[in-house]
């Protein structure tokens, strides 16, 4: 008979570390999907996810079971991703003159006819990743959670541990930061 999550957690806390494996198996896809939003290289993504699980194992005694385990885990995942962004923020300065041909073409199409540029195109995805990589860590986190994942301010506050007013302030700054980067991109491309 398959054991419930609560039983698995209780077993791990009682010293049976092997009961942690089914939890890793069940929730790793979600943690990987989250990590892939913030890191590009697969080796970095694996390191992030592994760190999330190590933290989850070490702090499992702090899980009180009031909220689902998944919520508790995702909070840890988002915070670990944020730590990753902060530790790698020095690498984020790149030039838009290095746009690939596809990205450049997509941008040209957008300039000629904003409605005609297909947002499902691979070039658009690459371009948005390039822009997100230029954002500061808090801006990238807020834009990802608020705009891309459509989460509410309250949810973001819970996930990040920031207060609601701080999330609002950071969201305002993040949008401005993104606009500034897009303006820089268009200037570099067309001047």
């Amino acid at each position, binding site marked *: 008979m398959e054991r419930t999550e609560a039983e698995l957690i209780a077993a791990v806390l009682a010293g049976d*570390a*092997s009961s*942690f*494996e089914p939890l*890793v*198996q069940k929730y*790793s*896809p*979600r943690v*990987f*999907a989250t990590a*892939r*939003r913030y890191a590009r290289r*697969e080796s970095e993504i*694996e390191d992030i*996810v*592994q760190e999330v*699980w*190590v933290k989850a*194992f070490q702090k499992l005694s702090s899980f009180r079971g009031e909220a689902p385990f998944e919520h508790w885990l995702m909070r840890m995942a988002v915070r670990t991703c944020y730590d990753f962004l902060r530790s790698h923020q020095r690498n984020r300065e790149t030039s838009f003159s290095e746009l690939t041909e596809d990205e450049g073409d997509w941008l040209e199409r*957008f*300039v000629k006819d*904003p409605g005609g*540029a297909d*947002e*499902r*195109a*691979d070039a*658009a*995805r690459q*371009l*948005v*990743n390039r*822009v*997100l990589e230029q954002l500061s860590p808090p801006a990238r986190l807020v*834009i*990802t959670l608020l*705009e*891309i994942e*459509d989460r509410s301010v309250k949810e973001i506050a819970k996930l990040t541990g920031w207060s609601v007013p701080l999330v609002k302030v950071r969201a305002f700054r993040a*949008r401005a930061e*993104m*606009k500034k980067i*897009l*303006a820089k991109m*268009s200037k570099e491309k*067309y001047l």
Partner: protein
Amino acid sequence: MNTTELQRKLIAAAKANPPGDHVPYAFEKRVMAHLKDKRGMDVWAAWASALWRAAVPCVGVPLLLSAWAFFAAGPSNGASNDLSQDLDNTLLAAAVQDQAQVNW
């Protein structure tokens, strides 16, 4: 270029292309092996943390005793206030005693 529209378009592009959730082969085994290694190391971590915790009373108790000795020792218990004089007397006690014997 309309940056507001471009921003909207790029956000839509990110939404339209969510990241994959595939997990590398035997990833959970790797995590479990890492946790096992980590638990071996944790014995040393626990020892180090116990030592650090022990350091706090080791510093605190002498400090408290020093403070207690400093404030409790007053002129009423007959000791001299002049610590340097006491030190002189202690160090030179043997010499003074020798001198007294010679004089006698």
